[in-house]
């Protein structure tokens, strides 16, 4: 028979790291809370009959957040055979709050004190035997990051599950509260599984709506129990939920006092606190973040990444693959059109994209390191301060962090935002942050037209952030999105040395999927593009064309290219690339590879992307980059937006907004750029000035839907009324 062991614990306490170690899975391990939104399942290594369930991180079993609902539904509804409760040893007091609730569920529980290495490093001591005696269950130590003690804890939980041995319930509550809970237990006995009696009784005491609904108590019994609860509230002068919370913490304080010895004085600063004083400082936080992102992009695009990418493009693809493949195919007698299809189409398109893999890997590696050491969680905290000012919650930044890898999970991560208006706005703005697939576009233009400038690459990231902030300000002033942003509470993890396994796994997963897409979607797309750009009508006869400007693709591209003329890239090739980018953003580069003759240029020994410079100036290239970074994301991300919006109207609104903002941003940059570089004032410039003025107006106009001034006004009115009455 299958034995189910649930991994439960606070957010960011190391559950997923342990899950991966126990099951050999490759689940994403993020160093910020809320990474696991839904439960995941895997078999315990060496124990084929045991299934480990990785639950989302929760602080309590109260159903306030999506994560808590998922975890609680599983624990109470599906009843695992045992719970392995992961407790962050460096924050043991707060973590034990959930532990006491899990024990009350009446299921076998093993507590694993994680990060024991950090506890020791801090000079603290946890007496596991005393802690176990107080909690009434087995307590073990472990370090998920170092791979120590995890399997022993899982095997202990397995043994408990096989023996169906639940621990003793600790005496958490006292006095009249304990009396009332015991009375509730008697009253609901028989209505619920005996093992869960205690937990249900406490939830009834807390007036938990879901539990009350589930129990369907008679009106007379409800009134009777209500009397007991009300008596307690009157006696302790507090509401029922707070009474339970206070008594729980009082109990935990006693347990901690007996079993934990802290070296540091209670309010002294840890190393992480000291680092945070600088890193999250009101003045320094933003410059440090900007400098960190500049370094990340500079190293990945301009230095190490550039060298490796140049080698991949020039030596590997152009020299070795294109040159030899072309010669070989011609040697065995392949028709010129097939040589063209394979070398210029497939190798040209796929090679153009693959050439940017080294830059991408380095970027992902550095972002993974920043995340794993705990810095990205600080960035969410820093951004909350800024976002809140502009009407967005810091909660919105977590999807944006995830979206720097791919927009699809970024959009889906918005599910954790409870406020519907904030959630919609987050979905609309998440894809502004450059995802991995947009990296080749950035790398291409930074390399081809800006000499590998790190500033251009970094600016791409901050243009995304600026678009999010701009949207936050503007949209919050509309009726549809008005209202205060949801509060954002996030625990900042202690800084630690990055786990090599986690970092390399995250980097490789992202890089490998990029390579796979280049070998599938980009390859197929390149073949289609090659045919369309190689065939056309010459003198009324359909056939291969010498010049791709007379091809079918040129005709299609020219029909839509006028739309982009005011943005500076009104020729058919960039227009086609913009549209093929909807299949996958890296396809923009693949399309350029086919259309600008990646292989041909390389054979001549000229600079790989030199041909692109013939169709772009630095200004129009920057405008093209902005448009492609901000406009509608790829079809997969659009699908995710449709799923999450659950409304065709909102989906069109979101995509329309992105395209509109992208168009206007590019228009302003290009046209004003032209004006400032001495190209005179034209119709386009006038349109750009109008767009800029409109943007400024939308930014500074009064918020008619701001709740706070209304609240102030109503208080003022009420006090005036009071004065008049008196």
């Amino acid at each position, binding site marked *: 028979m299958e034995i189910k062991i649930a991994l439960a614990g606070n957010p960011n306490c190391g559950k997923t790291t342990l899950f991966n170690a126990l099951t050999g899975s490759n689940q*994403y391990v993020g160093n910020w809370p809320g990474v696991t939104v*839904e439960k995941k399942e895997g078999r315990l290594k060496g124990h084929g009959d045991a299934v480990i369930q990785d639950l989302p991180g929760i602080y309590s079993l109260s159903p306030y957040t999506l994560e808590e609902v998922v975890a609680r539904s599983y624990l109470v509804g599906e009843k695992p055979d045992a719970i392995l409760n992961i407790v962050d040893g460096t924050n043991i007091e707060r973590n034990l709050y959930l532990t006491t609730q899990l024990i009350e569920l009446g299921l076998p529980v093993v507590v694993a004190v994680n990060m024991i290495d950090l506890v020791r490093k801090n000079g603290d001591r946890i007496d596991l035997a005393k802690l176990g005696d107080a909690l009434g269950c087995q307590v073990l130590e472990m370090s998920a990051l170092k791979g120590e003690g995890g399997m022993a804890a899982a095997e202990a939980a397995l043994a408990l599950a096989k023996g169906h041995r639940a621990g003793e319930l600790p005496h958490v509550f006292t006095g009249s509260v304990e009396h009332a809970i015991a009375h509730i237990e008697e009253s609901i006995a028989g209505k619920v599984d005996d093992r869960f009696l205690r937990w249900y009784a406490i939830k009834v005491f807390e007036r938990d709506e879901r539990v009350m609904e589930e129990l369907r108590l008679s009106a007379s019994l409800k009134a009777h129990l209500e009397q007991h609860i009300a008596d307690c509230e009157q006696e302790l002068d507090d509401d029922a939920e707070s009474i339970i919370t206070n008594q729980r913490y009082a109990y935990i304080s006693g347990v901690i006092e007996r079993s934990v010895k802290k070296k540091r004085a209670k309010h002294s600063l840890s190393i992480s606190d000291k680092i945070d004083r600088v890193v999250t400082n009101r003045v320094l936080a933003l410059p440090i973040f900007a400098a960190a992102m500049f370094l990340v992009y500079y190293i990945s695009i301009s230095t190490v990444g550039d060298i490796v990418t140049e080698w991949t493009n020039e030596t590997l693809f152009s020299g070795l693959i294109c040159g030899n493949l072309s010669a070989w195919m011609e040697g065995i*007698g392949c028709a010129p059109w097939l040589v063209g299809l394979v070398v210029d189409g497939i190798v040209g398109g796929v090679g153009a994209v693959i050439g940017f893999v080294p830059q991408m890997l380095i970027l992902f590696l550095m972002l993974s390191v920043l995340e794993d050491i705990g810095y990205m969680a600080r960035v969410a905290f820093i951004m909350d301060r800024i976002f809140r000012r502009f009407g967005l919650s810091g909660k919105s930044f977590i999807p944006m962090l995830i979206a720097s*890898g791919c927009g699809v*999970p970024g959009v889906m991560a918005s599910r954790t935002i409870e406020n519907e208006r904030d959630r919609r706005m987050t979905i609309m703005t998440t894809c502004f942050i450059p995802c991995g697939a947009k990296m080749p576009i950035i790398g291409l233009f930074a390399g081809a037209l800006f000499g590998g400038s790190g500033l251009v690459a970094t600016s791409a990231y901050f243009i995304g952030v600026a678009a999010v902030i701009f949207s936050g300000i503007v949209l919050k002033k509309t009726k549809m999105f008005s209202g205060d942003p949801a509060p954002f509470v996030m625990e900042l993890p202690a800084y630690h040395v990055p786990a090599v396994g986690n970092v390399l796994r995250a980097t490789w997963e992202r890089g490998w*999927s990029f390579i*796979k897409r280049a070998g599938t979607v980009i390859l197929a797309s390149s073949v289609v593009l090659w045919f369309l750009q190689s065939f056309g009508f010459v003198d009324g006869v359909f056939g291969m064309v010498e010049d791709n400007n007379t091809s079918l693709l040129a005709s299609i591209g020219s029909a839509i290219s006028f739309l982009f003329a005011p943005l500076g890239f009104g020729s058919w090739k960039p227009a086609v690339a913009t549209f093929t980018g909807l299949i996958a953003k890296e396809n923009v580069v693949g399309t350029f590879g086919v259309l600008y003759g990646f292989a041909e240029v390389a054979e001549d020994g000229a600079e790989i992307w030199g041909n692109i410079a013939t169709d772009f100036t630095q200004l129009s290239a920057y405008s093209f980059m902005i448009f492609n970074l901000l406009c509608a994301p790829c079809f997969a991300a659009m699908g995710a937006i449709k799923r999450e919006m659950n409304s065709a109207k909102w989906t069109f609104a979101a995509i329309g907004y992105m395209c509109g903002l992208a168009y206007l941003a590019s228009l302003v940059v290009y046209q004003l750029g032209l004006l400032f570089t001495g190209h005179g004032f034209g119709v386009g410039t006038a349109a750009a000035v109008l767009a800029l003025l409109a943007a400024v107006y939308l930014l500074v106009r009064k918020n008619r839907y701001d709740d706070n001034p209304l609240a102030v006004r109503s208080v003022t009115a009420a006090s005036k009324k009071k004065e008049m009455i008196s």
Partner: protein
Amino acid sequence: MNGPTIVGALIVLAVVAAIVGRGIWNRRHHRGGCSCGCGDCPSRGLCHPDK
């Protein structure tokens, strides 16, 4: 058309057909679709509850 051209063209055709076919199969079975790679995606289960 000579032999190598026919064989080469058929290989290219087969590869493209396989890619398109696989894409359609994936879509029908609610698999894949994003650039992040599902193994890396923190919300994988939302798209693929069967995995």
